[in-house]
C-alpha cells in the first residue's frame, strides 16, 4: 500500500460574506468567473485534490491569483478551507484529519509536524539569526541548550555559520531566506511548506538556493510542498508538479510528463517557454527499433541487424532477448562506450565515427547533446538489464528540444509485434 504523507481531498476556499452559498455552485463545477458574477464571491481554491508520498518534492505551480498560496495555507490552516479534507500521516498517531483539529491540536501540528518558509522571508527583525532559527524550538519548549545546538547545526547546514549573532536586516535577501529555511528545518517537522521561497531573489542567487535546497533535501529527506510561479524552477526541483489555473489543478505529473504531454492549452502555453533539455530523458525521445524509420538489414544466428533509413552504413545489432549486441559501421564492429563516462574526458576536435555511445534511459537531453560533440553516430539507449530501449539520432534530439516531443508515449503500454522487435518498449515502467 502506498502511504501518503498528505492527502488533500476536494479542498475549496471561497472568499466572501457567505461562502456556503457559493459552495453549491463550486460543487456543480461552475467556473470562478461565473461564481463571481452570480454571487460576488471569489473562489480562491476550487475543489483541489492531491497526495504526497514520503520524501516527495511536490511543486504547485501557477500564476499570481491562481490560488496556489491560498491552497498551501489551507494545508496548515493559516487559511480555513471552506470545504474539503486534509489528512496527514504521522508516525505516532496514524492519519490525522487536519481539517478537524481544534486550536490546540492545530498549534501542536504547526509546532512539530509542519513548518513553513515564506516568500518575503518573514523573519523576526528583533531577534538574532540564532534566535530566529530556534524560534520554533522555543515554542516547542525545548531546553535552551539543546535548541542552541540544533540552531547552530541548522545555521551551518544552510551555510551561515558565523552569523549567529547578526540581525536579519544586516543580511542580504539570499542570506535571509537561508535563515528562513534553517528556521523551518530546525523544528524537525517532516513536512515543509514553502511559499515561493525564492521568488524574491536575484536569478543567480535563486539558482544557488535551488541547488542547496536539493542537497539539503537529499540529506534530510523531508516531504516538501513547494509553491512557485516559475515553471523552470518547478521543473528543476519537483518530483511531481501540479499546475493551477484559477483555483483548479489542471494537471499533475512528473516534469517530463508536463513538458512532453501538456494536458491543456494553458499548460502548453507555459511549457512553450520552458527549457526542456534538463527534463526530457533519452527514453522519451528515443526511437524504438520497430519505428518505420528502421528497416531490417539482415539476420545472423541469434542477432538481427537493423539500420536507420538515413544512415544505411550503420547497423545496430539486437539479439532475441532484446539485448544490445553492438554496432557495425561499414561492415566493421565499433566499440560502444557509456556516455556518462565519455563526458568526463575532453571533447575531441572532430566528432568520431568509429565509436558509439550507450546511455541509460534516464539521461537527459542535455547530456545527449553534449555527447553529440564527441561522437557523430546515434546514441543507443540501454537499460540496466542490457536491453536496447531505443536509438537517439540528431533528429530526435532536435525534435525533443524544439518541439518538446517524444517518440514514445509516456503512459501507454503498447504490445510489440514479436516478429518486428522483441525488445520491450521504452517508457514502460
Amino acid at each position: 500500500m502506498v502511504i501518503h504523507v498528505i492527502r488533500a481531498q476536494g479542498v475549496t476556499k471561497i472568499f466572501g460574506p457567505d461562502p456556503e452559498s457559493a459552495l453549491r455552485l463550486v460543487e456543480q463545477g461552475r467556473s470562478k468567473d461565473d461564481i463571481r458574477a452570480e454571487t460576488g464571491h471569489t473562489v480562491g481554491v476550487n475543489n483541489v485534490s492531491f497526495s504526497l508520498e514520503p520524501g516527495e518534492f511536490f511543486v504547485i505551480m501557477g500564476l499570481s491569483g491562481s490560488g496556489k498560496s491560498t491552497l498551501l495555507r489551507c494545508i496548515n490552516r493559516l487559511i480555513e478551507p471552506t470545504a474539503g479534507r486534509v489528512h496527514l500521516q504521522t508516525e505516532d498517531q496514524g492519519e490525522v484529519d487536519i481539517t478537524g483539529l481544534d486550536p490546540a491540536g492545530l498549534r501542536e501540528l504547526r509546532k512539530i509536524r509542519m513548518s513553513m518558509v515564506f516568500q518575503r522571508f518573514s523573519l523576526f527583525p528583533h531577534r538574532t539569526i540564532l534566535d530566529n532559527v530556534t524560534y520554533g524550538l522555543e515554542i516547542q519548549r525545548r531546553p535552551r541548550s539543546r535548541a542552541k545546538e540544533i540552531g547552530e547545526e541548522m545555521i551551518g547546514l544552510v551555510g551561515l555559520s558565523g552569523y549567529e549573532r547578526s540581525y536579519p536586516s544586516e543580511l542580504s535577501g539570499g542570506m535571509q531566506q537561508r535563515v528562513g529555511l534553517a528556521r523551518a528545518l530546525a523544528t524537525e517537522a517532516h513536512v515543509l511548506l514553502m511559499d515561493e521561497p525564492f521568488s524574491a531573489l536575484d536569478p543567480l542567487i535563486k539558482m544557488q538556493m535551488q541547488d542547496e535546497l536539493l542537497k539539503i533535501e537529499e540529506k534530510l529527506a523531508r516531504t516538501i510542498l513547494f509553491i512557485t510561479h516559475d515553471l523552470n524552477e518547478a521543473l528543476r526541483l519537483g518530483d511531481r508538479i501540479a499546475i493551477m489555473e484559477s483555483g483548479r489543478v489542471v494537471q499533475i505529473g512528473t516534469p517530463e510528463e508536463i513538458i512532453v504531454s501538456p494536458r491543456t492549452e494553458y499548460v502548453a502555453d507555459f511549457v512553450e517557454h520552458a527549457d526542456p533539455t534538463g527534463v526530457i530523458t533519452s527514453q522519451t525521445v528515443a526511437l524504438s527499433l520497430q519505428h518505420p524509420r528502421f528497416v531490417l538489414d539482415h539476420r545472423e544466428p541469434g542477432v538481427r541487424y537493423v539500420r536507420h533509413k538515413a544512415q544505411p552504413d550503420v547497423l545496430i545489432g539486437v539479439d532475441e532477448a532484446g539485448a544490445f549486441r553492438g554496432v557495425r559501421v561499414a561492415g566493421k564492429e565499433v566499440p560502444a562506450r557509456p556516455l556518462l563516462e565519455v563526458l568526463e574526458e575532453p571533447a575531441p576536435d572532430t566528432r568520431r565515427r568509429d565509436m558509439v555511445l550507450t546511455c541509460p534511459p534516464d539521461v537527459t537531453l542535455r547530456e545527449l547533446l553534449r555527447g553529440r560533440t564527441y561522437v557523430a553516430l546515434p546514441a543507443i539507449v540501454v537499460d540496466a538489464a542490457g536491453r536496447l530501449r531505443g536509438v537517439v539520432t540528431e533528429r530526435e534530439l532536435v525534435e525533443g528540444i524544439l518541439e518538446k516531443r517524444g517518440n514514445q508515449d509516456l503512459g501507454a503500454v503498447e504490445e510489440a509485434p514479436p516478429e518486428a522487435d522483441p525488445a520491450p518498449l521504452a517508457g514502460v515502467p
Partner: protein
Amino acid sequence: MLADLFGYHLFDNHTIPVREWIAAAVTWLYSNYRPFFQTIKKPVEWLLNGINAGLHGVPPLVMLLVIFALAWWAASWRVGVFSLAALGFVGFLGLWGDTMTTLAMVISAVVFCVVVGVPLGILASRSNGFATVLRPILDVMQTTPAFVYLVPVVMLFSIGTVAGVIATIVFSMPPLIRLTNLGIRQVQGDVVEAATAFGSSPREILFKVQIPLALPTIMAGLNQTIMLSLSMVVIAALIGAGGLGLPVFEGLNALKTGLAGIGGLAIVLLAMVLDRVTQGLGERGRHR
C-alpha cells in the same frame, strides 16, 4: 408675536439643565462613593510618598551622579553631561527640593499610566469593538481643560499632592494607550503569520513578537505621557500639590516675576532631561 415666530427667543425660555445634572452627579458620587475614591487613592499615595521620600533622602550630589549615569546608560554621554548640568543649575536656583517633589509626582503618575495604559492599549489592539468604545473616552480625557476636572477631583480625592497626581494620571495616560494600540497594530502581518505557522499561541505571539516589535512606538507613547504629566503637574499646584508648580503659582499670585521665571525655567530643564533620557531608552529598544 412675529419675533416668536422667527425664533428670536428660541433659547431664552428653555435650557437643558446639564449643569445641574453634572453637579448632582458629582455630589451623588461624593456622598455615596467618597470612601471608595479615598481607597483607590491609597496606592497612589503610598507610591508617591515612597518615591518622594527616596528622592529627598538621597544627598543631591549622589542624586546628580546617579542621574548622570542613568542618562549616559539610557542615551549617550552627551545626554549624561547635559542632565548633570541642567539639574545642577536647577539646584543652584534653590529649587532642588521642589524639583525632586515634581520628579516624584511625574514618576508615580507615569508608573500608574504604564500599569493601566499598556494593558488597555493591548486590549484595544486586539479588539476593534473595544478600540471604538475607548476612543471617545480618550478624546475626553485629553481635551477636557484641566481646570474643569480639578473641581470634582478635589471633591472626591481632597486637595493635595496625591489628588494632583491623580489628575495628572487622567490627563497624561491617553497617548500611551493610543501608541501601544497603534504600535501593535503596525507590526507586519507576515511576521505574525510566521509566528502562527510555527504553532505560537496568541499569548506567545503577543509577548515574543508583537510587543517587542511595537516597543519603539510604545516608548514614544511613554515619552509623550511623561511630557504631558510634567505639564499637568504645574496645573496641579492649583489644588495644593507641591513641587515646581508652587513657585510658578506663587509668582503668578504675588506678581513675583522672578520667582515664576525660575520655576518655569526649572520645569523646562527637567522636561528636557526626561525627554532626552526616555527618547534614548526608546532608541535602545529599537531593533536594527
